[in-house]
């Protein structure tokens, strides 16, 4: 049994089930990120943990105590909202201490806790201001202060960074990560941004259409995505997905793809087990960083495949250059070193690290794990 247990939880509005049998167990000190596109049910799940929405069936327990029907304020949780939800009529100090006041904490203790948190978040100079007088980043800190001061068992974050500009978002991300590392608290964090999910979490639950698509460490999720949805949702640029046919050549399974010139090309699988799919169609998934120029190929890889093909577009992005080719009728992006020289229309020798390639069943879109 974990610190926070979500067991078989479903949620329905009337006849419509919006969350289907969610099962997640979170250990103490873990940083769980719920990620998915909007409408996937991640915020609903968070609200259910918070007690802001009822549980249709199943159970949510914190520290072994069932929380179904327990009032939000009795769950010893704290939550940071997307809009921060700072009380506009109260000062920063009042905002931070309101929860303590509601829980009957005496004033001196409240003051002490507030001073501590304010110092930690560097908002001690803002205590007398009203939220309307603060910048976005400052509001974010106050919202976190309000959560921290309660010293809760579980922190809940509902897309806390999505209202910040890009630079501030990166800074605050680091800040949250530091905070987690120093406080060792249990956090459930909702975001639609897969980079936040990857960078912050100890574990990720990728959600779509009310289902948890995959639950695992960032590395699991990235390297062995459970299905096409997870594969394409996590990672930027997204994983290339292209139809291929499994053929046997020299006793080893190959993926047969078609290049820009209409020629069939064979790429050998690293997994011999793919032989079981011989003669059948699959979806081949290759991350852009697994498609490089010959010099940029991963030296540790045991299976580098070469493929020359026509370049469609090149996009220099500073640290890397993204090069697009056409394979099996799809645009396939590769990630080259910055100083590679390619021009559109030219034929170029791509190297593909087939160790990192994954295959999906075209019918179920589930990953084929040979």
């Amino acid at each position, binding site marked *: 049994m974990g610190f926070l247990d979500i067991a078989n939880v479903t949620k329905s509005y*009337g006849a419509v089930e919006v969350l289907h049998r969610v099962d997640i167990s979170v250990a103490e000190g873990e940083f769980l990120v719920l990620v998915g596109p909007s409408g996937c049910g991640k915020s609903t799940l968070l609200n259910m943990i918070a007690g802001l929405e*009822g549980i249709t069936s199943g159970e949510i327990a914190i520290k072994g105590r069932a929380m*179904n*029907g*327990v*009032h939000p304020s*009795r769950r010893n949780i704290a939550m940071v909202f997307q809009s921060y939800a700072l009380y506009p009529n109260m000062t920063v100090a009042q905002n931070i201490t309101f929860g303590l006041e509601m829980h009957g904490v005496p004033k001196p203790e409240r003051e002490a806790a507030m001073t501590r948190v304010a110092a930690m978040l560097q908002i001690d100079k803002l205590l007398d201001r009203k939220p309307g007088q603060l910048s976005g980043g400052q509001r974010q800190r106050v919202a976190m202060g309000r959560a921290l001061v309660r010293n809760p068992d579980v922190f809940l974050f509902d897309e806390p960074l999505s209202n910040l500009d890009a630079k501030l978002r990166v800074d605050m991300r680091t800040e949250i990560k530091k905070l987690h590392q120093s406080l060792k608290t249990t956090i459930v964090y909702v975001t639609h941004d897969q980079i936040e999910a990857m960078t912050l979490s100890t574990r990720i639950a990728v959600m779509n259409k009310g289902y948890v698509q995959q639950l695992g460490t960032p590395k699991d999720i990235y390297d062995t995505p459970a299905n096409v949805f997870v594969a394409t949702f996590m990672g930027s640029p997204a994983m290339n997905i292209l139809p291929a046919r499994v053929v046997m050549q020299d006793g080893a399974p190959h993926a047969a793809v078609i290049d820009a010139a209409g020629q069939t090309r064979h790429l050998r699988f690293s997994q011999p087990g793919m032989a079981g799919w011989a003669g059948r169609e699959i979806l081949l998934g290759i991350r852009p960083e697994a498609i490089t120029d010959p010099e940029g190929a991963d030296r540790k890889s045991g299976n580098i495949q070469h493929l020359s093909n026509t370049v469609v577009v090149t996009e220099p992005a500073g640290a890397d250059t993204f090069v697009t080719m056409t394979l099996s009728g799809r645009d396939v992006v590769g990630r080259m070193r910055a100083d590679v020289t390619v021009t559109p229309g030219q034929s170029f020798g791509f190297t593909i690290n087939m160790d990192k390639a994954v295959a999906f069943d075209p019918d179920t879109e589930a990953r084929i794990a040979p």
Partner: protein
Amino acid sequence: MARETALDLRTRLQEWIPKLVLAPSVAVMLVFVYGFILFTAFLSFTDSKILPSYGLVGWHNYWRLFQLPTWSLAIENLAIFAALYIVICSVIGLTLAILLDQKIRGEGMLRPIYLYPMALSFIVTGTAWKWLLDPGIGLEHTLHLWGWTSFHFAWIKESDFAIYTVVIAAVWQTSGFVMAMFLAGLRGIDNEILKAAQMDGASNWNLYRRIIIPQLRPAFLSAFVILSHLAVKSYDLVVALTGGGPGRATELPATFMYSYTFTRNEMGVGAASAVIMLMTIAAIMVPYLYAELKEPK
């Protein structure tokens, strides 16, 4: 909501408190509005005269109602009055709001001047209006004294035009209020959009017609609710201004209902007219409310 698992006491209480808080209002409304409407509907089928009585007479009161020339006149008048009143109030309100929004010096002075009529009861402003509109002593008379002898304005004395004077006085009373609603709407519009549109080369006319006025939709809707409710209830206005005259030319359903229920001792007919009036209001308002309140899921 589907059946939830058991809740703790506090949560259960919190679930119930909102409903308990709302309950008195709902109860009061059901009894004192809808209960009374049902009671009135019942009365319309009885032989009630001076006080309610409970002898049923079927549709007789409705039959009599539609025999009365004054009733059809009252309905006709309401249609004219409500349409003109709502349209003119909205147009004047919007115009004033737009003009007042042009960084006018003295806005603080003008705004209360436009608003104050709403604060006055028609018991006496009615008399002031009656005098103003009376050609013998009011505006026409004064302008004649000032030398504009061809000026003629005697609508209040003419059966076919008197209802328009009721519109004038009603517009005077509420257009300022409507102005305030539109002004509020205008102030709520993001100025960045306007700047962008101006850079796109939109003329002021186009700016208002294409960009600003469409954004005032909520203000139009609120104005519509308030104006139509005032139009339907207009009673003291007519009583004070024309007393329903000349003849019965400015009778409205509200004055008709009052006079049959209370001064002519024909409560049954009065109730029947009230039912017709309520059904008319419902026919207009229910679709509107439905459209407004439908859940945007």
